[in-house]
C-alpha cells in the first residue's frame, strides 16, 4: 500500500487542532493561532490538489483506497475516492482556509476555540466524502454535528441557542433512521462495505424501506422542502464562517449521499421514488424562491436560495441521466463557491453596519464600488448567468430533466426565472438606489484580506463557467459507470 494520503487529509486538521489546543490562548493577540490554522488548512489544500493531479480520470473504480480492520469481522476502516467524491474533498479543503481568513472581524472572543472547531469540522467533512464503509460514513456524518452545534451556539447571533438546538435535533432525528437502515443492511448482506455492496446488490424487497430511511436523513440535511426550516435559522444565526461552512459543504454531504448511497445501493427504489423527489424538488424550487423574494434579511434570503438550488440538485440526481447527475455535481460545487461568496459578501457589510436587513442599505455602489462589482458577479453566478459556473450546473440539470420528464423541467425552468428575480431585486435594493442611510456614507470598501478571499472565490466561479472541462472530465467516467450499473440493475430485475 502506498502512502495513506486520504487518512493524512483527514488527520492533518485534527493534528492542527491538537496543536492549537496546547498553545496558550492569549486574549487580543491570537494571530499565531490563526496562522497555525491557516497553515494546516493550506497544506491540506495542497495535498488535495496533489490528489487531484495524481487522480486517474480514466477509471471509475475507487482510488487511493485504504482498508484496515477496525472492529474485527464487522467494520473495516475503508476510505477511497472516485470521480464523484474527489471534487467535494477539494471543495472542502478550498473553502476551509477561506473561512479561516475571513474570521478576522466576525469572531470576537475565544478565537482559538473557534479555529479548533473549524479544523475538526474540516476533518469530519473530508471523512464523509471519502468513507467507503457505511458505518464509517455515518460516524463522520454525525460527528460533524458537534462542532457545528458549538459554532452556531457559542459564536452565533441573538437567537443562537434556538437555532443550534433546532439544527442539532432536526439532523439527529433524520439520521437515527439511517443508522437503523445501515445495521439492517449489515444483517441482510453481511457487510457494510460500499464497494462490495455495489457488487452484491440488496434484495429488492428491502430496498424501499431502506431507501426511505436514508432519505429521511439526507432530506433533512439537503434540506428538502418541507424539512428545510432549520436551515434559515441556522444560517442566519451562525457566524459568517459557520454559514459558509454550512452552505458550502455541509449541505453537499446529503447530495453526495444521494448519489453514492441512494442511487448506488437502491437502484430499484430510486426508480420507485423518483416522482416523490421530483415533487419535493419542484416545490422546493418554486416555493422557496417565492419565500426568498419576500425576505427582509439578506442572510435569510441567501439561505432560502440555497434550498431552491439544492432543489435543482436533487432534481438532477434523480433524472438518472448522464447530464442530470453531472449537472447536479457541478451545481453543488458551484453552489459551494457561490453561496460561500454570498455569505462572505453579506458578512463584509454586516461587520461594518451590524445589520443584515436589506432596508438598512441602498446606494452602496457610489461608496464602495469594488464591493459592488464582486457582489454583482456572485449574484449573477447565483442566478446562473452564462459564463459563470452556476450556469453549467443548472443547464445540465435542466437538459437531463427535459429528457426524463418534460413537465417537471418546465416548472423547474420557471424556478430559474424566479431565482433571477430575487437575486436581482436583492442586488438592486442593496447596491443601487439613493443613499438614504447616513451611516453608510462613511462605510469602508473591501480591505486587503476581504478582497483577497472574494477574488479567490470569484476566480474558480468564472474559470469553470467558461471552461468546465476539468470538472466534467473528472466526474464523467464515474457517472457513466454509475448509470450503467443502475441500468443493468433495473434491467436484471
Amino acid at each position, binding site marked *: 500500500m502506498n502512502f495513506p494520503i486520504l487518512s493524512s487529509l483527514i488527520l492533518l486538521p485534527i493534528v492542527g487542532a491538537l496543536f492549537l489546543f496546547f498553545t496558550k490562548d492569549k486574549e487580543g493577540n491570537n494571530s499565531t493561532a490563526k496562522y497555525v490554522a491557516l497553515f494546516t488548512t493550506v497544506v491540506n489544500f495542497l495535498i488535495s490538489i496533489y490528489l487531484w493531479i495524481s487522480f486517474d480520470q480514466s477509471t471509475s473504480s475507487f482510488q487511493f483506497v485504504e482498508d484496515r480492520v477496525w472492529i474485527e469481522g464487522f467494520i473495516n476502516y475503508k476510505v477511497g475516492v472516485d470521480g464523484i467524491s474527489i471534487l467535494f474533498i477539494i471543495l472542502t479543503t478550498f473553502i476551509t482556509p477561506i473561512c479561516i481568513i475571513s474570521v478576522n472581524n466576525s469572531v470576537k472572543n475565544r478565537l482559538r476555540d473557534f479555529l479548533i472547531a473549524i479544523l475538526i469540522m474540516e476533518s469530519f467533512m473530508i471523512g464523509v466524502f471519502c468513507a467507503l464503509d457505511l458505518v464509517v460514513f*455515518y460516524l463522520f456524518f454525525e460527528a460533524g454535528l458537534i462542532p457545528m452545534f458549538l459554532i452556531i451556539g457559542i459564536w452565533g447571533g441573538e437567537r443562537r441557542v434556538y437555532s443550534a438546538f433546532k439544527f442539532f435535533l432536526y439532523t439527529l432525528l433524520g439520521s437515527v433512521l439511517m443508522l437503523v437502515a445501515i*445495521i439492517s443492511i449489515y*444483517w441482510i448482506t453481511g457487510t457494510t462495505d460500499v464497494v462490495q455492496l455495489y457488487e452484491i446488490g440488496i434484495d429488492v424487497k428491502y430496498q424501499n424501506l431502506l431507501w426511505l430511511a436514508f432519505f429521511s436523513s439526507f432530506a433533512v440535511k439537503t434540506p428538502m422542502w418541507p424539512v428545510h426550516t432549520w436551515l434559515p435559522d441556522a444560517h442566519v444565526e451562525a457566524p459568517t464562517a459557520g454559514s459558509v461552512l454550512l452552505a458550502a459543504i455541509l449541505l453537499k454531504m446529503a447530495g453526495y449521499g444521494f448519489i453514492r448511497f441512494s442511487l448506488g445501493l437502491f437502484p430499484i427504489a430510486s426508480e420507485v421514488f423518483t416522482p416523490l423527489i421530483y415533487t419535493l424538488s419542484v416545490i422546493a424550487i418554486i416555493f422557496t424562491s417565492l419565500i426568498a423574494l419576500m425576505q427582509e434579511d439578506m442572510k435569510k434570503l441567501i439561505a432560502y436560495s440555497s434550498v431552491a438550488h439544492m432543489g435543482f440538485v436533487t432534481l438532477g440526481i434523480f433524472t438518472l441521466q448522464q447530464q442530470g447527475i453531472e449537472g447536479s455535481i457541478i451545481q453543488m460545487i458551484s453552489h459551494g463557491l457561490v453561496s460561500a461568496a454570498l455569505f462572505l459578501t453579506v458578512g463584509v457589510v454586516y461587520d461594518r453596519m451590524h445589520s443584515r436587513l436589506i432596508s438598512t442599505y441602498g446606494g452602496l455602489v457610489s461608496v464602495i464600488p469594488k464591493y459592488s462589482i464582486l457582489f454583482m458577479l456572485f449574484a449573477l453566478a447565483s442566478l446562473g448567468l452564462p459564463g459563470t459556473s452556476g450556469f453549467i450546473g443548472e443547464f445540465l440539470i435542466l437538459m437531463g430533466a427535459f429528457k426524463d420528464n418534460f413537465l417537471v423541467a418546465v416548472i423547474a425552468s420557471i424556478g430559474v426565472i424566479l431565482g433571477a428575480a430575487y437575486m436581482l431585486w436583492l442586488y438592486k435594493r442593496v447596491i443601487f438606489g439613493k443613499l438614504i442611510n447616513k451611516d453608510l456614507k462613511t462605510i469602508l470598501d473591501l480591505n486587503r484580506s476581504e478582497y483577497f478571499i472574494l477574488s479567490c472565490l470569484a476566480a474558480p466561479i468564472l474559470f469553470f463557467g467558461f471552461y468546465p472541462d476539468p470538472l466534467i472530465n473528472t466526474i464523467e467516467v464515474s457517472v457513466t459507470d454509475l448509470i450503467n450499473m443502475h441500468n443493468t440493475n433495473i434491467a436484471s430485475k
Partner: protein
Amino acid sequence: MENLNLVLPEIFISLSIMFLLILGVFKKNSSKITFNLSLFTILITAIITLNETFSVSRETLFNESVVIDSMSSLMKIITLIGGFLVLVISSSYLKTFKIYNIEYPVLILSSILGMMVMISSNDLIVFYMGLELQSLALYVLATYNRDQLKSSEAGLKYFVLSALSSGLLLYGCSLVYGFSGSTNFDIISNQLNSNEYVLTFGIVFILVGLAFKISAVPFHMWAPDVYEGSPTTVTLFFTIVPKIAALTVFIRFLYVPFLNLIDQWQMIIIFLSIASMVFGAVAAIGQTNIKRLIAYSSIGHIGYTLAGLATASNEGIQSSIIYISIYVVMNLALFSCLLMLRRKDQYYENIEDLSGLSKNHPLLSLCLLVILFSLAGIPPLAGFFAKFYVFKAVLEQSMFFLAIVGLLSTVVAAFYYLRIIKIIYFDKEKDKYDTDHSLWLKFSLTVSTILILLYFIFPSQLIEVVSRINII
C-alpha cells in the same frame, strides 16, 4: 472437598471486612488507615479475580449453588474497579461533610461482597442472601450523611421500597420453587415448562423485584429521590455498582432457569426497555438538579441495556454488558465533574450552577462536553458505540419497533444533554469554583474522559473480552 480457591475473592473480602471492623473499634482515629486498607483489599480481590478469569471456563461449587464463569469474573472485576474508584474519589467529599468515618469503606466493602455473591449465584437462596447483604449496606450508605434531612429521607424511602421489592422477589422465588422443586437454577431450568399457568406469576414477581433493583420503568419511583438525597459519592456508587450486579442476575435468571419460558418474559423485557428509554428521556427534560437528572438519565440507559437482553441471543447479552461497562465509565466521569463543583466547602449540584463554566474552567467544561455528548450517543464517542452494539443485536432479531423507538428516544434524550451543554457554553458565567481537587479525582476524570474520547480507535478489545461470554 470443594475447591475453595474459586471463592477466594469472596473469602478474602469478608475476612478483610471483619478485620477492618475490629481495627476501627480498637484503634482511635483510624478512618484514614481503614480507607487505605479497604482500597488495598479491593485491589487484591480484583487481582485474585483477574487471575481466576484466565484459569477457569465454568466451574460450580457447593452443590452447584455457586458458579464461576467468564461472565461472573468480568462483572466482578467491573464491580471492583467501580467500587475502588468510588472509594478513592470519596474522601475529600466526606471530609467536607465531616463524615469521614470507618463505616463508609466497610459498608462499601460489604455491599461489594453482597454483589459478588449475587453475581456468582446459581441458586435462589444464595442469590437472595447476596441481594440482602448488598441492600442492607446500601440503605445505611444512603442515609450516611445523617445530619441532613434529605439524606435520612432518602435512606428511609430506599429502605421501604427496596424491602417491598425484596418481598415480591422472595414471593416469586417461592412460587418458582414450588413448581420446580428446587432452588438450583440448572434444575429449575430442566423442570420448568411453559404449560404451568401459575408459574408466569412467579416469573413476573421475580422480574418486578429485579426491575426495582435496576430502577426500570415503571418501578423507578424511588430512584430520583434517593439519588438526590444521598451524599453525592454514594449516589455515584448507586448509579454504577449495584446496576452491574443486578444486570448480571437479570441475565442469569432470564437465560438459565427461565430460558424455556422466553415467550412469557420477552414481552415484559421489551416493555420495560421501551418504557425506560422513553420515560427516562422525557422526564429528564424538566429537571433542575443534576443528581435528579442523572437519575432519570440512568433510567434511560438501563432501558438500552434491557433492549440488549430482550433479544435472547448471545450477541444481545454481550452488547448489554458492553453498554453497562461504557455507561460505568461515563457516569464515573460525570460524577467526577460534579464533585469538582466546590466553592469554599460547599458543593453545588444544580444545573444552574454550571452556567458559563467554560469561561472559568475551560478544561473541566471540555471534559463535560465530551461526557455529555457521549451520554447522548453522538459518534465518535464511546456512548455511540454502546448504543450501536445494542441496536445491532436488536436488529439482528428483526425487532424494528424496539430499535426505532430506542433511537428516537435518544433524540429526545439528546435534548436535555444539549441543554446542559448550552448552559455550560452559551450562558453567562458565575463565580469561579475551587481548583484544589485531590489527585485521584483529577486522575479518574482524565482517564475516563480519555477513554470515552478515544474508545473509537480500539473498539475491538472490549468486544474481545466480552465475546467470551456465551450463556445460551
